[in-house]
């Protein structure tokens, strides 16, 4: 290892050039003694029983969290509930859905209606396009 190599090291917490300028290399015999002292005095390292079980459970939880995060990053569907609404309310709701889609706020619009005139014509809880909503709104209005 050259001095040039050390100066290219990017570890931010240590000045290696200073280390090597002032500290002598550790004496191997002293290192052997130090190692024996530490290994002999400290208890054997091990995790508590059941570590693999806990790790697999943590892995499953991590995956679930990642999946939820991914789902949350997608635009949520706008749900307009028009159950038991009068006809003109349904038209207003459908118009609002068109506006939401047209503005690009949500990529999915779901419209529900008590008498199902819009639902059956348009979507039935499936993603709906602007054209579909416009079409179903026209049908409903007629």
């Amino acid at each position, binding site marked *: 290892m050259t001095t040039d190599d050390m100066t290219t090291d990017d570890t931010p*917490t*240590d000045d*290696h050039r200073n280390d090597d300028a002032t500290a002598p290399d*550790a004496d191997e015999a002293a290192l052997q003694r*130090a*190692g024996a002292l530490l290994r002999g005095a400290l208890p054997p390292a091990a*995790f508590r029983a059941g*570590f693999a079980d806990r*790790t*697999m459970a943590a892995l499953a939880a991590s995956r679930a969290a990642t999946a939820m995060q991914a789902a949350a990053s997608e635009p949520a569907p706008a749900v307009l509930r028009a159950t038991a609404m009068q006809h003109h309310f349904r038209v207003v709701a459908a118009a609002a859905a068109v506006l939401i889609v047209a503005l690009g706020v949500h990529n999915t619009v779901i419209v529900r209606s008590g008498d199902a005139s819009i639902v059956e014509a348009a979507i039935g809880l499936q993603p709906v396009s602007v054209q579909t909503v416009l079409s179903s709104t026209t049908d409903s209005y007629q």
Partner: protein
Amino acid sequence: MIDAEHDTALVARARLGDDDAFRILVERHQDAVARTVTGMLGSRDDADDVGQQTFIRFHAALDAFRGESSLRTYLVRIAMSCALNALRSTRRRELRFVRDDAALEQAVDPLANASPVDDGPAVRIRAALDTLTPDHRAVVVLRLLDERSTRETAEILQVPEGTVLSRLSRAVQQLRVSLGPVWEEFSE
């Protein structure tokens, strides 16, 4: 060599979503991870959490593991990174909440709470290790506790070998001072 081949096959299966294969890897290498994590953190409550975090990070990086170093070395590198992060965040928390001078002194100097008369060598040694900076402690754990070569230690910590040796020299000097009679007893 057989272990290495098995590891490679298990990693390949784990990449395809085989959790049983991944579990075998956890069981096979948990002791090596435990040596690193408990060496750095002691038997603290969060040692187990940091161990789990190590394997979760490894799982997330399965595709990045190319087998250029042994899986054990790769895992120890992740474990060391997780342990260093845990140490640094604990340190920040302690210093943020410590208010009175005595508590501050103990947070900065763990040996202030360890009596040379009442405590066994293990407690004294643990306390002495805790006085080392995280970077110096990492070298002691890998080179002396885990008996890795200077080259391996440098590879895991991603620093030059000269840096490993100089950090080790400083760390051993500090341990000698911290442990005093305990060190001398073992050195004879």
